């Protein structure tokens, strides 16, 4: 595992204080900070200001691929091994809709998971952590050089952090 960079790790008990701290860190021009939260909180996510996750594109592409492959598979297999019953058409769309639908859902879901894994790893940053961040505290880790650490520490304390520590 990659060693996290040096920086300042702050813990907040209050959501509004954490959101204010995040906004101030951003105003200082810092972009590569990491925020920890035990639940997805709108106020925090708004303060961080990410764009909507691209996972939705994976879902769309997966779903469309599933639908198309459901159509292609059923039609091709019907003509590849033709069994004519009562002179009816070999490629009969209505019963194949069930297969197309199921594959739309299946590949849509699997692509969503693939997208989730891909983007989570892609946007992963090595950062210092405290186990209480999955329990009841909000964490903010700001990587910074030793000369900036004091200023960042003061900024986070001023915003209402209950604990601030410098990590090397």
């Amino acid at each position: 595992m990659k060693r996290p960079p040096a920086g300042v790790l702050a813990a907040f008990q209050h959501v509004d204080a954490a959101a204010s701290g995040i906004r101030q860190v951003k105003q200082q021009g810092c972009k590569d900070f990491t925020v920890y939260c035990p639940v997805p909180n709108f106020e925090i996510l708004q303060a961080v200001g990410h764009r909507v996750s691209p996972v939705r594109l994976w879902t769309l592409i997966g779903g469309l691929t599933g639908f198309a492959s459901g159509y292609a598979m059923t039609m091709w297999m019907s003509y590849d091994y033709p069994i004519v019953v009562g002179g009816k058409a070999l490629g009969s769309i209505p019963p194949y809709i069930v297969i197309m639908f199921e594959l739309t859902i299946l590949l849509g879901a699997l692509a969503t998971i693939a997208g989730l894994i891909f983007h989570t790893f892609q946007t992963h940053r090595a950062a210092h952590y405290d186990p209480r961040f999955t329990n009841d505290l909000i964490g903010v880790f700001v990587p910074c050089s030793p000369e900036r650490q004091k200023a960042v520490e003061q900024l986070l304390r001023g915003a209402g952090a209950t604990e601030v520590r410098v990590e090397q």
Partner: protein
Amino acid sequence: MAAVAKPELVRVPPTYAEITHDISATLGKPGRTYYLLLASAIVIMLWGAAALLWQVRYGLGVAGYRPPVMWGVYITTFVFWVGIAHSGTLVSAILYLFRSAWRTAVYRTAEVMTVFAVMTAGLFPLIHVGRIWYAYWLIPYPNQRQLWVNFKSPLLWDVFAVTTYFTVSATFLIVGLIPDIASVRDVASGWRKKLYSITSLAWRGTDQQWRHYTRAYLYLAALATPLVLSVHSVVSWDFAMSIVPGWHTTIFAPYFVAGAIYSGCALVITLLVPLRKVFKLERYIHEDHFENLAKLLLLTGMLVGYAYGSEYFIAWYSGNDAERSSFWFRAFGQYWWATWTMLICNGFLPLFLWFKKIRRSIPAMFVLSLFINLGMWFERFVIIVVSLSHEYEPYAMGHYTPSWVDWSILLGSFGWFFMWFLLFAKNFPMVSIAEVKEIIPMPRKERTHA
């Protein structure tokens, strides 16, 4: 994610730390009762497995199949378990999309039930076909005979529907578990810490993780939602596409879906009642949750009752002799006991749910849920066995009596289901830590109207 709850849903709102503590405490060292229950489930499962081996050794003749009834207890039980699964997806996915706050405390149990119920259901078509080792013939794969499967057959639709349902519901369960496993990891010690460190997939609740996770979870819920309606519709078409009197009817898809949600809600109640007691989760799962589940039961129970009435009415109104005869046979023929068990348990007993007192009484709900599950198993028995035993020609009518092998495999399926359920319940959180926290507003420094 979930909306802010009405205050009564979490009566004295616990703190985030209390939620983590209370739910993590359910994963402590199991007591003797747990081991006794688990051992019983395993013994029952092994008995079923022994019966299955017997059937594999001597062939399907040891089951009670006799022409014309070649679909018996196995297909009945398959439909029963697939049906059970549905309410789990309803509670976890559909109610999530509706931002229903009450679901947060109960959806994990429902979801776990879904996954294990589909796992159980999936065994029965394999058991039913007899030669289990040829099960892979159901999958379209290139083979030397250059033969493909018949996509026009509802039985093949089932293969795709059930496989998709299992994959999507298992995925949805696992994704929902990740933040909770991380919470438990951070307070655990010993081998559990190692287990949760691996299974939490390095979750730390970072802004980027939540950013992608919340979207993925939303889309998975949206994808799982149509499955609630589609899977049991496809199962119903196994019957409705044929011309057997009592099966060939357009009402089957909605009738089966309503019945599936009905039986699933009943099993959720059956599981939640002991679970909350044993795990001391009364603070999180209480009368309000049972009342909401009871309302779902009441709604779907009324739909099922309406479907029963409609079936009988149409059989009479159609003027079709075979239909009339089939439905007369259901009520007054050799299998009258099965039909009346179904009608009383599914049509009459749920009428008690109109009373708020019953809906809020946990013991009453537990007893009712057991009767409803019994009734729903018999509903499938009536639809399948009774219809097949009384088709068109009197010389081709016959009687089916399940053998000890049928009953043992049915019983074994309950052992199989409860074994997985118990193993899961003691190793992973049965109440969602993150989502229960979500319905409680985070502490604020400044009081606002937000």
